[in-house]
């Protein structure tokens, strides 16, 4: 059976490219039997979703609320002015 070290590596790889069918089946079997790796899988997926997630909505809403992960509105305008020149 797949070791936990290999299983976690494959969990991560599955987020970046489609795994071959055999690998996928082996991984699924491991995750069904191993609560530690199952948690690892849920947790890294969830954390990535949370890192990507909330920004999506705020971008659409274009809220004036200061988001530390976004360009400040004043700089955004300054860049646009520089590009219009």
């Amino acid at each position, binding site marked *: *059976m797949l*070791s*936990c*070290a*290999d299983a*976690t*590596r494959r969990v*991560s*790889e599955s*987020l*970046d*490219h489609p795994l071959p069918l055999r690998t996928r089946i082996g991984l699924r079997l*491991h995750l069904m*039997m*191993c*609560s*530690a*790796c199952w*948690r*690892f899988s*849920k*947790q*890294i*997926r*969830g*954390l*990535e*979703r*949370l*890192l*990507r997630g*909330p*920004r999506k909505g705020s*971008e659409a809403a274009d809220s004036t609320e200061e988001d*530390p*992960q*976004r*360009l*400040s509105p004043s*700089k*955004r305008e*300054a*860049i*646009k002015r*520089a*590009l*219009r020149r």
Partner: protein
Amino acid sequence: MEADVGGTPPTGAGAGLAGDPCLWVDEHGDALFRYALSQLSDRSTAEDLVQETFVAALEARERFRGDSTPRTWLISVLRHKLVDHVRRAGRQQIAENPETLGAEVEAAFNAHGRWIERPGRWAPEAPAAELERKEFQRALQTCAQGIAGRAGEAFTLRVLCELSSEEVCKVLEVQSTNLWVLLHRARSKLRTCLERTWFDRRTKDEPLC
């Protein structure tokens, strides 16, 4: 978007990076900023480099070939500026590669590939209460920013800048198998960091594998 490699002069639309450059700022500005910030941790320098990137991209837009996405191209331009900036500032090279991170991930497993310290019993969810949620987002971002070296850079490009893994390979000039290793390290590191700094690990259960 069709790549126009031929002789069409770059008169706005029709060039590889078509359209109003101001729209690029709305579409890619935050992604570029997040990348710059992850490498510099100084907001105003990061913002200035993003501006320089857009200006340089506007001047060089006819060189955009369309063999990568506009965002990837912009990020490559920014990466050169980051490397230059870091070099000028006489600090560590961008993307220097301390292998300490690898050691840390490997240390999660014993020689037989079994967990030494199993992941805690927590669900990756943000708290419902507004104030606590902000605190959580900060903890999450701090952990993401704290991923060192190339693994951190790869993770930023993949997740915060939302590039595909193929595009990240182009920007970092690495093979995809190497990229997967870097991203696995980054995710493991992020998970451990959040577990330690936010989620309680009061519950551990019996070893299964």
